[in-house]
């Protein structure tokens, strides 16, 4: 197989090309409309809308991460929210340390909840988080390391299918329980909030908001391209083979565990980065981000959009979350029903999601009806 060319990466698949164009346009236009257009103009994008869009972009990155392991590798992870939340907590810890003496208790080193809970000194794992590079490294290292250890244990002993799903769910559940405890040193039930600054800039200033939005867009762009590169590469083909016939791939001589493990770790790192970009935009991180339902919701985004198509995952994430934003304010009662119904309908009638639906229509348009392929 030839090396993946840059052109193929960008223009090899129509959905991808469209997505990349839309994302690039969005990343440029939204900040311009927010900053340059006066607030009373109908074209103005409010801070709320931009933050919302930024949140969707981080969700989309998370969905891409899940799609990489589920759609391409057949690992249904019900614990990706854990990696997302770990990245978010790493960023949150940095933001907490930035508050400094502006907290309610004005302690220069200890955060408010630590003073409140009578901590004598900073817990050891909080050291270094006053530096952005360190926190940034932890955003990658913490989820990556957890995925590495967990994946190594799980894949080595060939835990597959629903077993793996259940165990990943148990993992995120266990982490949620742990982070809920006050003596864990992560703020317990309330989590981390009341952020003031990021990189010395006030977090609520329009410029900072724009910066975060652009950063989310760029992260999604790079993450997407990286995933696309992987799926097009030789390793991507092996991973597809693992998904479709794991034992056969193993018998041919590939080290199935290694492929799965590195895909899993990479996906976890992407999820962590998404979480780290999510937290400064929503302004809070707490243990509810670990809850199993969050992980499973990500899976439904991917399923709605179409698994094994990266642009489908993005589309699913944005669509479902837009629906969620709409319903939870307009008809909160209905949302749970709609979400539940979505799970059932998509798995029963749309196993390849919206992307599959579009592709099917296109193919039918191309192929004459009487000559349908077997």
């Amino acid at each position: 197989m030839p090396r993946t060319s840059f052109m193929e990466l960008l223009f090899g698949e129509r959905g991808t090309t469209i997505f990349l164009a839309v994302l690039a346009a969005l990343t440029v236009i939204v900040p311009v409309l927010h900053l340059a257009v006066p607030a009373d103009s109908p074209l103005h994008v409010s801070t709320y809308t931009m933050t919302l869009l930024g949140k969707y972009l981080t969700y989309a990155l998370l969905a891409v991460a899940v799609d990489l392991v589920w759609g391409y590798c057949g690992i249904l992870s019900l614990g990706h929210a854990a990696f997302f939340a770990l990245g978010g907590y790493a960023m949150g810890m940095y933001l907490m340390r930035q508050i400094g003496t502006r907290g309610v208790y004005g302690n220069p080193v200890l955060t408010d909840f630590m003073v409140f809970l009578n901590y004598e000194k900073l817990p050891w794992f909080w050291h270094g988080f006053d530096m952005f590079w360190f926190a940034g490294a932890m955003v990658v290292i913490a989820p990556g390391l957890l995925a590495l250890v967990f994946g190594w244990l799980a894949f080595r002993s060939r835990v597959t299918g629903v077993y793996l799903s259940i165990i990943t769910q148990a993992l995120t559940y266990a982490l949620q329980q742990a982070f809920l405890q006050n003596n864990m040193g992560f703020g317990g039930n309330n989590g981390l909030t009341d952020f003031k600054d990021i990189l010395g800039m006030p977090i609520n200033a329009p410029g900072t908001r724009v910066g975060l939005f652009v950063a989310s867009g760029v992260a999604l762009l790079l993450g997407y391209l990286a995933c696309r590169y992987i799926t097009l590469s030789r390793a991507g083909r092996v991973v597809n083979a693992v998904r479709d016939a794991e034992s056969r791939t193993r018998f041919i001589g590939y080290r199935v565990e290694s492929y799965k493990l590195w895909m899993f770790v990479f996906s976890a790192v992407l999820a962590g980065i998404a979480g780290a970009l999510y937290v400064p935009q929503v302004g809070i991180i707490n243990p509810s981000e670990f809850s199993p339902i969050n992980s499973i919701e990500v899976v439904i985004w991917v399923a709605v959009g179409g698994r094994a198509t990266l642009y489908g995952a993005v589309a699913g994430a944005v669509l479902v979350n837009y629906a969620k934003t709409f319903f939870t304010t307009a008809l909160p009662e209905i949302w749970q029903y709609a979400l539940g119904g979505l799970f059932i309908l998509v798995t029963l009638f749309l196993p390849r999601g919206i992307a599959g639906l579009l592709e099917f229509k296109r193919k039918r348009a191309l192929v004459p009806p009487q000559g349908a392929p077997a």
Partner: protein
Amino acid sequence: MRLLAWLLLAGLLSAPARSADDAALDTVLTELARAEDFAAKSGAATRLAGVQHPRASAALSALVEGQLHFRESDTRMFIVTEDPPAVTDLLTNQAATGVAADSLTKITTNNALRKTLRGLIASFALADPDPELRVQAVTELLRSPDEQNVALLRARLEIEKDAAVRSTIEAGLALADLDSEDADQRLAAIVALEDSLNLELRNRLEAMITPDEGGAYPEPDQRVRDAARALVQSIDSSRSFYSTLETFFFGLSTGSILVLVAIGLAITFGVMGVINMAHGELMMLGAYCTYAVQLMLPNFIGASVLIAIPLAFAVSGIVGILIQRFVVRYLSGRPLDTLLATFGVSLILQQAVRSYQANNVPVQTPEWMSGPIVINEALSLTYNRLYVFLFALLMFVLLLFVLKKTSLGLKVRAVSQNRGMAKAMGIRTEWVDAMTFGLGSGIAGVAGVALSQLTNVGPNLGQAYIIDSFMVVVFGGVGNLWGTLIGGVSLGVVNKLLEPWAGAVTAKILVLVAVILFIQRRPRGLFPQKGRAAEG
């Protein structure tokens, strides 16, 4: 004639309010109000204590506090309290409006009378039919173990039959003897207390043998000290033994709940290979069935649980069959999709219950299931946990019987082992699938009835147990009921044994981590399926 009719009617109307006890109480109270001296009052009070009336003890307590007053005109009694100022009718125990406190006459007492009264009140409480109240009375008397109280307790010990009350009295009397001047009597008291597990006693003895700053022991006699030391040790070791036993029982109870929750899952997940994320919600439906039965039959709380069991089995079973027919059936061979679709079902069921009933509902525990079985001072087990434990075992045996000895069970096993072959042999696999799913779901409903007796019943009931029960099935080995039993019980026991030193949450996390590590060694659980069926 008309007058007579009115009189009769008035008599009829007032008759229920004035029983024979009321009359007796009235007589004694009048006697008390008209008593000339303290001796007469003392006599009246003694007779008052003998009257079988719910307000008699209130009258005595008020009298000893100096709160009992009467109205000169009709000798009706009132309780007058100063802080807050209030006048209460003694007989009705309701605020007497329109009665001024200064229009009443106080019944005065003196020291001797008060002493008599205190004894009477205590003996009153000692004779209460409720053993728990008797224990309270004994504890109250033992706070001031003077001669009179000790005599009262000794008298009660002669006739007391309840073990808990007896042991409280005995321990109390011996404790009183520990204060004796006579070393031999102290020693005798310690010897008499040999089998005690009383914590208060242990602390007393500990104080006796702990030297003060000067190195002098509060207890001068060496023999008494030795005996006390030995007893402290024996109490400590027995208590720790019993507390371990209690923890073990709690573990068994938690384990039995897990088993009950997981055996339904073991059927759908283990036998059919279908992962049903709505299993927890089927349990929740079962728990709500108990609530519904109690709402509809408020007079049969005792039987409600027994009625709810078949009802919950039917309701959850039917819902399960519907899930199988309309969702799961179309997803055969796609376990991950089944997981997602059933998760959708669970969201819908949760929301359906939440729209109907937002908060937790109060489910009553029937009398025969509530309360503890007190084995001794250090160990008591609760009836509801015991019954749930036995019930879990019963369900397990029943299910084992169904799977091993009935025609349905044979078909279920055949289909789970080799679907194609079973079909070729004429088994209606579709029907068997539906029945199996219904059976597993029905058991979830029954588990919900049991859970309704132990935890809060609300829309999230199922969520709390679903992950644990999946762990049990994975740990025990899929498709093996014995594995589920042993897996559930051992996870429950390990969890509870870890709890005292690790805390509840950490214990739970440790167990989860342990299960994940265990799967490293044995990826297919404790009792893996063997043969071709195992290769999925």
